[in-house]
């Protein structure tokens, strides 16, 4: 493994263990006395209109897929940014061509109203 990844690894271990320890500890400590009234809305709370596991609107999907697309685009820009000075104007031109093609798609999506929350 390349050097310098121990802190990230330790961070990952803590992140995985934290919820497990919290949930197990809570289960061990708390008194267990479940009854139906506990699951109802409390005092002046609003009664649930429907199940939360309903169907989501397709707009979330458009936002998610556009996010994936622009995420991939950004991943390509990162190595360029790191090596910006060595690549010089050659790199700038390359990225300009890359972005020009994508910005056409972006403008089209914008004109189509895909980014609006209808």
């Amino acid at each position: 493994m390349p050097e310098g990844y121990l802190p990230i690894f330790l961070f990952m271990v803590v992140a995985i263990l934290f919820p497990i320890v919290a949930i197990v500890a809570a289960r061990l400590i708390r008194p267990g006395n479940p009854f139906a009234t506990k699951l109802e809305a409390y005092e002046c709370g609003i009664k649930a209109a429907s199940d939360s596991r309903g169907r989501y609107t397709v707009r979330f999907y458009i936002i998610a897929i556009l996010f994936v697309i622009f995420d991939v685009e950004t991943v390509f820009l990162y190595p360029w940014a790191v090596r910006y000075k060595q690549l010089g104007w050659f790199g700038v031109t390359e990225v300009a061509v890359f972005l020009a093609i994508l910005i056409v798609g972006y403008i089209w999506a914008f004109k189509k109203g895909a980014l609006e929350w209808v």
Partner: protein
Amino acid sequence: MDVILFLLFAAIAVACGVNLVVQKHPIASALSLVGVMGSLAVLYLLLGAEFIAAAQVIVYAGAIMVLFLFVIMLLNAGGEPKTPGKSRMAGLLGIPLMAVLLGLLSYLVQRALPKPAGVTFGAFTGGKPYDVGKAIFTEYMLPFEITSVLILIAILGAIVLARKEID
């Protein structure tokens, strides 16, 4: 150390993959896929591909899995209904036959293909974003530019397919 980590994360990847198939609820399956993607990122890191490992976590374990979850919620896929007439023969014969198939396949692959030069951990060091930048922007310039066309097609496809409902 590298071999131990490799075996650990390879085992986690396989376990998450099996869990993905076994789970009845699609959201639980999607979460096990996050586990597969995460352990694959560690495997890339072990091979020295640092940038690819980070991209794997950001794009696959992050963005693509969010997309998968949205699709599951969009379709409102609930728990799988229990099938009553499950054939017992399927499990009884299927698992040994699958083992035979895998054994046969690995034997044939070993025989037919030339012996690969084994992988040594730490042999490859050109995986930093700095080195990847050099490779992408000089050697693989044309594939990089063509990728933008691919992404453009993805934008068009997504909007054409999904907008139909709203317009």
